[in-house]
């Protein structure tokens, strides 16, 4: 188990989060109204902050994902 490299710098600023949102909306096919953008960006920033906590935690490669599929 090794300490992971630093995850993306946080807090993600509004401009960076806005760029993520603007790039992703055509990809996922959502027509986001301009007046929703601010709260969507705030939520993206909150998710990134949560992700940093998880991504910074070292895990051995042998740790399997929790969901188990049985054929």
């Amino acid at each position, binding site marked *: 188990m090794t300490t992971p490299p630093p995850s993306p710098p946080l807090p993600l600023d509004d401009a960076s989060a806005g760029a993520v949102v603007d790039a992703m909306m055509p990809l*996922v096919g959502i027509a986001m109204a301009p007046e929703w953008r601010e709260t969507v960006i705030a939520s993206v920033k909150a*998710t990134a902050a949560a*992700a940093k*906590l*998880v991504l910074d935690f070292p895990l051995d490669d042998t740790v399997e994902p929790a*969901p188990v599929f049985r054929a």
Partner: protein
Amino acid sequence: MSVKETAAGIAAAVAAGRLTASASVEAALARIAAIDPGVNAFTDVTAERARARAAEIDAGLAAGKAPGPLTGVPFAVKNLFDVAGLATRAGSKINRERAPSPRDGALVRRLEEAGAVLVGALNMGEYAYDFTGENAHDGPSRNPHDRERMTGGSSGGSGAAVAAGLVPLTLGSDTNGSIRVPSAFCGTFGLKPTFGRLSRAGSFPFVASFDHLGPLARSVADLGLAYDAMQGEDPDDPWQAPRPVEPVTDALAQGATGLRIAVAGGYFARGGEPDCFAAVARAAEALGASRRIEIPEAARARAAAFIITAAEAAGLHLDRLRERPGDYDPAVRDRLIAGTTIPAAWVHRTQRFRSWYRARVLALFDEVDVILAPCTPCRALRIGQATMELDGVTVPARPNIGVFTQPISFIGLPVVAVPVRVGDGLPLAVQVIAAPWREDLALRVAGALEAAGVGAAPVAE
């Protein structure tokens, strides 16, 4: 019968011939008509169906048919459960355009097979992505103890209907705390069983990795009766675990004797109003539990639950977000849209962390049988309240109501929310947490708290 009667009391009265199922149902319908306009718990009252079912039960009893464990007990379900003849709206505007359900959800059928009578469907936060009990389309469910306050969510109507004495038993769903938070805010008992224990067939999903269904009631015995009636394999639910029926009702009398009980420290002992921790201390004292235990990496577990929730919910809703995003509750829509931007690599990593965390937490149950923790970091907030103060810091209210519930449902542990009063303020609740498949232990401890007078769910006056 008094409106304060428990499900067990009603079933006993019907079985003994002191009460008919029809009279029981009529009392509930009258109470709903009188009280519900003020608490907004119900979105549908299925009076015609309930009267027909009650008459059928009474005719059966008169003909010598043996009563079931819940015979004549009126109950209601969060409106994400399928109810034959109703569109399963799941708190949304969009879903109410769906065709009426052809049949009841699995747990509704099982409660009715045990003799209970469905009287309606209950208000909830849109698509269950909610801790408040507010709803942009149907209006907020209101806390029966203070109608200007939240019920908690997303099973807000389920908490309000029980606390107001409209019915003694409701069903809710709990993904990140949606049974336990309304139990805390409304002062009811609530059971979130082990992940995979009860069938989810015939309910509208939210987050496949975390969705649980379970009962809310005003006594531990009622939780046990309902839970026992709902157990059992269901081939319609591919996520259900292959477990035998393991009834708990007979075990409740054992109380907490011989059980190793600890209080969760660290993360679960800070970041809330002092009375939330005082409630846990009161429960621990009543149980003679002096040991403290650390649930490792709980803050990370909460963050991980946040990510998986956002990603899976966004995936579930993607088509609707593309086709009619303007028809969502804005508070839900904008989080779902944000969820579509989450990298798959983050989700994969988070599901791996979940395995790590599960193994560490399960190891704690080698040393203890039950862990106590606060349910919420605060009492019921005012309806519409956007922020709250925790440890002197102002934080957004909505996401932080579930700080203590999320790390537990994240790995599917069974929990009983036990309402514990501290002072003369609004209700609070304590989480009584057990190892997977040990609902019996959590319910025994909850029952011990109830017997000691520490846990109680009186009807709001």
